[in-house]
């Protein structure tokens, strides 16, 4: 990755790519369905990546990568890693079918979803990754999103893939360790990287990493990995921010009442306990948890 890309100032997705490639190395081919990175990667005749990159249609991340992998297999190339780099829209929504198909076939590739929780490239429209409570341009005003964010990792885990993990731009060591781990595994590997979007989340650009860290610390986005669909490992126990602290920094949540916030806190607690149960850890009680 090189400078001169056209990501917004403070772009979390750009940071995610940096860490990812740092850990992965250059022996890779990247498949990129439509997403913010389609623009960040540069327009003809420039590229901000130094690995071979194929831009593809929005919903084809899983399938095009399967084709590239098949081609490399035919060439006897076992060294090159095939990576799909997709946003949440291309993963949770329009690309979900191709992703599900590819991982059901256990295609040998790493699928990375960098998640900025809405259709940012088109101007902040709601996706199924948009969290409960968020404003977007298609969930405006009083019609803020009242559905939960889709738990994509669990959906992937249900496919019993060899490796699925969450990671955050705020935890580079953890992220890069997971990339290295994923690289060494054969079969379908899924990385869900939380990548903040200052533009769409209505936060100052300098808080981009901070907010991502808070998402982890609040248990809104826990860092964990699942091997072979069964072995859960929670990589980080939060030091403890409250959900409301995370929310109050972001313009996309400013309409929420105290009542809403405590409901969301309950949802987060519930999800966290669910995860603890899967990891075989004791449940916790209380607001902070």
């Amino acid at each position, binding site marked *: 990755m090189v400078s001169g890309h056209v990501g917004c100032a403070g772009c979390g997705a750009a940071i995610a790519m*940096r860490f990812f490639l740092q850990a992965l190395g250059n022996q890779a081919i990247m498949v990129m369905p439509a997403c913010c990175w389609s623009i960040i990667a540069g327009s003809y005749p420039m590229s901000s990546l130094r690995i071979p990159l194929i831009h593809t249609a929005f919903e084809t991340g899983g399938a095009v990568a399967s084709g590239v992998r098949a081609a490399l297999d035919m060439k006897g190339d076992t060294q090159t890693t095939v990576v799909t780099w997709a946003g949440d829209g291309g993963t949770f929504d329009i690309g979900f079918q191709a992703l599900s198909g590819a991982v059901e076939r256990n295609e040998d590739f790493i699928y990375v979803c960098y998640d900025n929780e809405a259709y940012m490239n088109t101007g902040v429209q709601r996706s199924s990754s948009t969290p409960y409570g968020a404003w977007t341009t298609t969930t405006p005003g009083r019609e803020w999103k009242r559905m939960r964010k889709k738990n994509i990792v669990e959906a992937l885990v249900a496919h019993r893939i060899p490796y699925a993990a969450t990671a955050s731009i705020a935890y580079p060591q953890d992220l890069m360790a997971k990339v290295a781990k994923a690289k060494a595994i054969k079969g379908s590997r899924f990385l869900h990287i939380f990548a903040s979007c200052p533009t769409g989340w209505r936060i100052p650009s300098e808080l981009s990493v901070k907010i991502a860290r808070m998402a982890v610390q609040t248990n809104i986005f826990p860092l964990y990995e699942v091997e072979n669909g069964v072995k859960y490992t929670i990589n980080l126990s939060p030091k403890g921010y409250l959900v409301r602290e995370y929310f109050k920094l972001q313009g996309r949540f400013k309409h929420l009442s105290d009542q809403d916030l405590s409901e969301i806190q309950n949802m987060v607690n519930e999800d966290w306990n669910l995860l603890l149960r899967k990891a075989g850890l004791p449940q916790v009680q209380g607001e902070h948890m």
Partner: protein
Amino acid sequence: MKAKNNSIRLPERLLISRSYTTSESNKTGSWRYLMPRYYEKTAPCSVACPAAEDIGRIQMLNTQGFFKEAWDTILVENPFPAVCGRICFHPCEKVCNRGRFDEAVSIRALERFVADTAQRYKLTSGIEPMAFTGKRIAVVGAGPAGLAAAHFLHLLGYDCHVFEALPEPGGILRWGLPRYRLPLAALQPEIERIRNSGVSIYCGQAVGRDFLHSAGETYGAVFMACGAQRMPLLRIPGEDLPGISEGLAFLCSVAQGGGPGFQGTAAVIGGGNTAVDVARCLRRLGARAMIIYRRRREDMPAFAEEIELALLEGVELLELYAPIRIEKEGNGLRLTLQQMKIGAMGADGRMRVVPDENRIRELTVDQVFKAIGFEAAEPWHVPEAGAVSHLKLRQAVLTQGANSVPVVYCGDPVTEIQSVVHAVASAKEGAMALHVLLTGGTAAVAETLAAAAVGPGGSLSMEAFLKGERLNRSSHVVAYEEINIDHFQYAPRMIQPRLLQAERVASFAEIDLKISAGMAIREAERCFNCGLCNQCDNCRLFCPDLAVRQEDSKRGRRIDYDYCKGCGICVVECPRNAMVLEEEQDS
């Protein structure tokens, strides 16, 4: 172009969206309207330290095992790390930002570790003094202030002659501090280092008042650092009875290996460190010791930790008792004590105490020690009122008579607080002021000293005075809220290893034991290094635009403004606030 069927040739080159060039030709720096830059600031500890030690930097060096560099960094500001590392009341730790997070860093213990390590390996300081100015300066008194003055004056390019009345240099450090707090083995190398740097120390050479007038023949200036040894009167009946002694004299005799061993009971009147030291020495000599103090324990000027240790050693503390009379009773002495109670808050923020009606208590002891503070022994040890060109500085006084050399007064008689580190600060301020006076005149003193100030507290940095790198830092004192605590993990403060409680009163052996390098490094790692860059690399790591480049420089990295979009992530993710985001300057 006309396309005719069956006549079109295939183009040789595919015109497709395929790129082999990078986006580096796109200078995204033009997007920026806020600009990050590296901008080191001031840590609160260094502001609180009267000697303005660069503590954040010292710990940074410690974490990397650069103990010699850490030692040199201390020595620029304070010639007594082995002393202060043991007996300093460490105001730095009280303001340590880490204290808000979990517990303050053990700054004093680390200072001692650095000094002990330097002594253990017989290191030589790497600090280069300035070129010799050709001037010679007389220093009166080889206590902490005098020796520190000589040290700083030597750094500034002066030849110093130190005159000491006693047979050995060290002053209070040698004669007034019990060995279990400051072993001679720790003190001596510090004095030797000053001597070896080229300072002449003449012991057994008392200097009289007329020296101030005659010194000009030999010396360009005189430094008065005579300390404060005289005890004020208790102003109660019977205070001059036999069996009543002064605490400092007692400590001095103990330091010389004397001190009568006895089984009796001794009362120590006072609440300062001397009172506590006397009581603890008495315990070691076999006596029952009780400290009598007119206020409460929390009001005692003695260090809380020392009081705690004293009580653990069996010293008894009688709070809120003021002696009103001492009488002879048999072989002993009868003290009459007035019970005191808490009154109104005083102007200094301390609670006033007032007599609690007629509640009186009597106490019979074998011996009484007075330890209620000290003042200058001779009137000429302090600046004369109305002296010509009398420049009152924060911790020192500078005078210059019409036809005489400048005289600088420093140390206990003129400092805010009587402590070793204040003596050092006083000597430093005096040395700097004198240097300015000799090179630029009186008028420049205030301004020049202000430029060397660290933070708003008035602590002066010799490094800054010498136009070292420290001068580039902002005087902004980093507050806890400005630290990005996300980048720190909770870690308890190191526990100082000590002699077993039972062993302590059995001898004058130092109570605090050495710590290992591993412990020191771990403890130093707890330091936030407030406002300083410790090359953690977060700025480079998190930059979405790869606009922070590694380079072969002291800082190791630079911001490439061709690409920096000014998002500010580097500034926020700097754990220690060593960067700043500011409006783009018009160039």
